[in-house]
C-alpha cells in the first residue's frame, strides 16, 4: 500500500512541482493538495493521509499551527515540514507542535523521499543543516530524542550534556560562568521536564538520545 501524501503549500507552482516528483516515486501517492494551513487541517481530517508535507509560511493558519491541530486531532498522521527557513528555531517549533520531520525546500528531492520514509519508520527526520545546528548525531533520530529539543531549552540541554559527561554542579557552574544555584535550578527543571529523578538516569537518557558520545 502506497504512502498517502498530502501537500500543503500556498504556492501552486511548488505544489505542482512536488506532486510531480513524489508521484514518480514507487510506493507514494499524493492524495490531495491544500493551499493554506486551514484547508490542510480540514483535508487531513477528511482524508487522514499518512504524511502531510507542510509548508511553514502560509497565510491564515501557518504550518506550525496547522501541524499542532493536525497532530492533536490525528496523532498517527506524520507531518514533515518543507520550509524555506534554515533557522533551527523553525524546526524546533515544528517539533514542539508535533511535527516529525523538517526539510529545506532547496534540499535535493531525494531528501524529501528519505524524510517521508524516515517518519513512516516512527523516527524523526531533521535535514542535515538543522540536525547539525542541534548537534544531533544523525538526521534520522529516535522520537524520544526530539523531546530533548522540544522540551528542554538550549541552556538546559547544555547542562544535561555536561551532567551526562560526568561534571558535577559546581564544575558546570564554573564552565558556564554562572552560579551553582542557577545550575541547580536547571537540573531540577530538566528532571521535572523529562520525569527523570536521578543523575544516573539522566546520563543514560542523554547517551540514548545521542546528546553525548559513549566514550566516557
Amino acid at each position, binding site marked *: 500500500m502506497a504512502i498517502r501524501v498530502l501537500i500543503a503549500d500556498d504556492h501552486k*507552482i*511548488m505544489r505542482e512541482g512536488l506532486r510531480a516528483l513524489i508521484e514518480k516515486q514507487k510506493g507514494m501517492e499524493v492524495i490531495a493538495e491544500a493551499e493554506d494551513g486551514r484547508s490542510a487541517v480540514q483535508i487531513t481530517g477528511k482524508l487522514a493521509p499518512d504524511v502531510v508535507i507542510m509548508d511553514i*509560511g502560509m497565510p491564515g493558519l501557518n504550518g506550525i499551527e496547522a501541524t499542532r491541530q493536525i497532530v492533536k486531532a490525528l496523532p498517527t498522521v506524520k507531518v514533515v515540514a518543507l520550509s*524555506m*527557513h*534554515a*533557522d533551527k528555531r*523553525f524546526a524546533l517549533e515544528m517539533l514542539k507542535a508535533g511535527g516529525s520531520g523538517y526539510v529545506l525546500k532547496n534540499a535535493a*528531492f531525494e531528501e524529501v523521499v528519505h524524510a517521508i520514509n524516515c517518519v513512516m519508520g516512527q523516527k524523526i527526520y531533521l535535514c542535515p543543516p538543522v540536525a547539525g545546528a542541534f548537534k544531533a548525531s544523525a538526521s534520522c533520530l529516535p522520537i524520544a530524542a526530539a523531546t530533548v529539543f522540544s522540551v528542554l531549552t538550549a541552556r538546559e540541554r547544555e547542562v544535561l550534556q555536561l551532567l551526562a559527561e560526568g561534571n558535577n554542579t559546581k564544575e558546570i557552574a564554573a564552565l558556564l560562568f554562572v552560579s551553582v544555584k542557577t545550575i541547580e535550578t536547571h537540573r531540577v527543571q530538566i528532571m521535572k521536564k523529562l520525569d527523570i529523578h536521578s543523575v544516573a538516569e539522566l546520563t543514560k537518557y542523554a547517551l540514548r538520545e545521542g546528546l553525548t558520545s559513549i566514550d566516557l
Partner: protein
Amino acid sequence: MALAASHTGIWEWDLRTDAVSLSRECFDLLGVRWTEGTLRSAMDLLMPSDALRVLSAARAAIAEKSVFREEFRTIRPDGAVLWLSAIGQVEYDDAGAPLRLVGTAQDITETKALQIEINKREQWVDSFFMGATAGLALLDRDLRYIRINETLAEMNGLPAGEHIGRTVREVVPGMADAVEPIFRQVLATGRPVLNVEVSGETPRQPGVPRQWLESFFPMKGEDGVAQGVGAIVVEITELKSAELALDESRQFAQATIDALSASICVLDEAGTILAVNHAWRAFAEANPPVRQNVFEGANYLAVTDGAGGPDTADASAFAAGIRAVISGARSAFSREYPCHSPAEQRWFIGRVTRFPGPGPVRIVVAHENITTCKLAELALQESEERYRMLFENSMDAIMLTVPDGRILSANPAACLMFGRTEAELRAAGRDGLVDTGDSRMQSLIEERKRTGRASGELTFVRKDGSRFPGEISSQLFTDREGNTRTSMFIHDITKRKQAESEVLSYRDALRSLALELSLTEERERHRIATDLHDNIGQTLALASIKLGGLRECTDITGVTDGVDDIRGLVRQAIEYTRSVTFDLSPPVLYELGLVAGLSALAEQFQGRHAIEIEITDDEQPKVLGDDQLIALYKAVRELLMNIVKHAKARKAVITLQRNADSIGITVEDDGTGFEASAMKPYGSAGGFGLFSTRERLRGIGGRLEIASAPGTGTKVTIEAPLQQ
C-alpha cells in the same frame, strides 16, 4: 697862707700830758672854737665810729715809730660831715721815749666824695662787666687780655684770672685765626666791627665747632689812637642750629607741598601770592592759557578778576570765594570747574582755606585735577541713566522689592502688565500679584533665601483678577545704604506658553507621524521580505528541486555537470535571498515570535562579533502585535549594536519576562559602562539611536531605562504593554 689856702691845720698831741692842741686852721676846718684840751675831748671832735680806729692807728704809729696816716670824719656843728686826712710823726726824746705826735690835718671831703663816686662807678662797670650775659673782654694792642668777664671766660673754658696778661692765641688758639685779623683791623682803622659771625672752638669744648656773634670796638687813648680793643661776644651756636632746624622744617614744608599733586599757593589778606608749590608752577608753565603772572608777588585776585572767556563765571565765583575766606565770612570755600585743554577734557576743584590760629591772614588756594573722579562720576551718572532707561523702557516688569514681599518701586512695564499704577502695585505687594494657589511660589522664595537668587514660572494676577503665566527671576542684593533688597523681573509668557503648547502638539503629531512612518517602513520591509521569500525564494527552491529531478533523468556527463553547477548557483541565490529576507524583516520574528526572533538575532551577533549572548525567557506566553514585536525587536537590536560598538563587553544577557500585563526585557552587559546621568536625551555620538529607540517604544506605550556607571557594565530595562 699856703696852709690856709689848702685848708690844712696843724695839730699836736703831747704824749706825756695827753694834751691836744690845734692850730687856728683846724678851728676853721672843724667849725669849733677848740684850741687845747685833753685827748679825750679832742676825740669827741671826731665821728664816734671813726674815733677808735684813729686812736689805735696813732698808738700803732707811736709804738712802731712809723708815720701816722689816717682818714676820718668829723661832724661840724652845722651838721656837715667833713672828711679829714691826718698825717703825723712821733717825736722822741734823746732816750728814745715818745714825746709827742705832731701832724697836719687836711680837709679831703671833696676828694673823698669824688673817690666814692669813682668807686661806685667802678663797681657799676664791674657789676655790668661781671653780670653781663654777653661775653666782654678788653685787650691791649698786643692782644693780651686786660680784662674779661666770667661769661666770656666760661665760654673760653678758663677761669677769668688765667686770661689776664695772656694773648688771645695763647688762651683760645682755636679762635685766634678767626678773630686776630678783626682785632688788628680795629686797631689799625680805629673803627668798630659789628656783628660778625665767628666760628671756631675753645678749650671748653675741644673739637666742637661753635658760633658766636661778636662786635669789636676800639678803645682810644687821649690822642685818638686805639690803645686796645673791646669785644662783645654772644654765643649763637644754639640759635644757629635752631635756625638750621627752622630752615630744614621750612624746606620740609616746601618739599611736602611740592610733592602734592594739587597746585597750591598761599595768599596774604590782599590776595598777593606769597608762595606757590611745584605743581602750581608746573601747571602755570605747562598751560599757555595761563598767561598772567601767577607766581610770588602777583595778586591772585587780580588774576581771577581779570579772567575772561567761557570761564568768567567760574573765575568770578572763585574770586568771591577767596574774598569771603579772607574776610572771615567763610572758613573755607571750594568749587569744581571745567578747564579743558585742547588735548583733553579736564576738571578741577579749587579749595580755599585759611591758616588757623592767630597771626597774619594767610589763605591757601589749592587746585586739584579731579578729571579721573569726574570722568568716573560722569560714567556712573551715564550708567545710572542707562539703567534708568532700561528700567523705564523694559518690556519686562521690573520691581525693586524687600525680601518680605513689599514693593518699593515698579517700572511702567510692571504697571502695564498688572494693570495697576505704581502706587497700587506698592499697596498690593508681592502677595497681591501672585496667584496664592500657586505652590511654586513658596519653593521659589525658599530657594532665593538659600542661594540668593531664584527663577521660575508663576501664575500672576492682574488688577481685574485675570491670571497670566509669567517667568520670574529674583535676586537678593544689598543697596548702598546696606539694606537687603530684592529685584524682580517678570516676563509675561502667555504667548510663549501658547507657542509651547503648539510646539508640544506639533511634537506629538510629528512623533506619531514618525512612528507611523517607521511602522509603515517596517510593514513595507516585511512585505518585500515576504515577497522575496515566498515568490523568488520558493521559485528558486522549486527550480532547485526540479534541477535535482532533471539530473536523475540523465547520465550524460556534460549535462549532469551543468545541472550541478546551476543547482549550486540556485542554492547561492536562495542563501542570498534568505539573508536579505532576514535583514529586511526576519521571518523567524514574525512567524515564531519575539523570543525566537531575538534568539536568531543573538546568534547572528555572536557569529559576527566577539560576544556571547545569552537569552533567558520565563517561557510565559507573551502576546504581541506586529508593531510591538518589531519595536521591541529593534530596541534590543539597537542595544546590542551599542554594546558591540561601545561597551567592549564579553557577554550580554537578554532576559524576557512577563509581568501582569506587560513584557519586561532587560539587556545587561559586562562592558565598560558609562555615566548614565551624563547622557543627553539625544546627543551626537550614537545618541540618536537611543533617542529614536525611546521614541519608538513610546509609540507602543513602552519605556526604556538605563542604569550604568563606569566600570560596572550597563543594564537597560524595557517595558511595554502586551497586546490586549
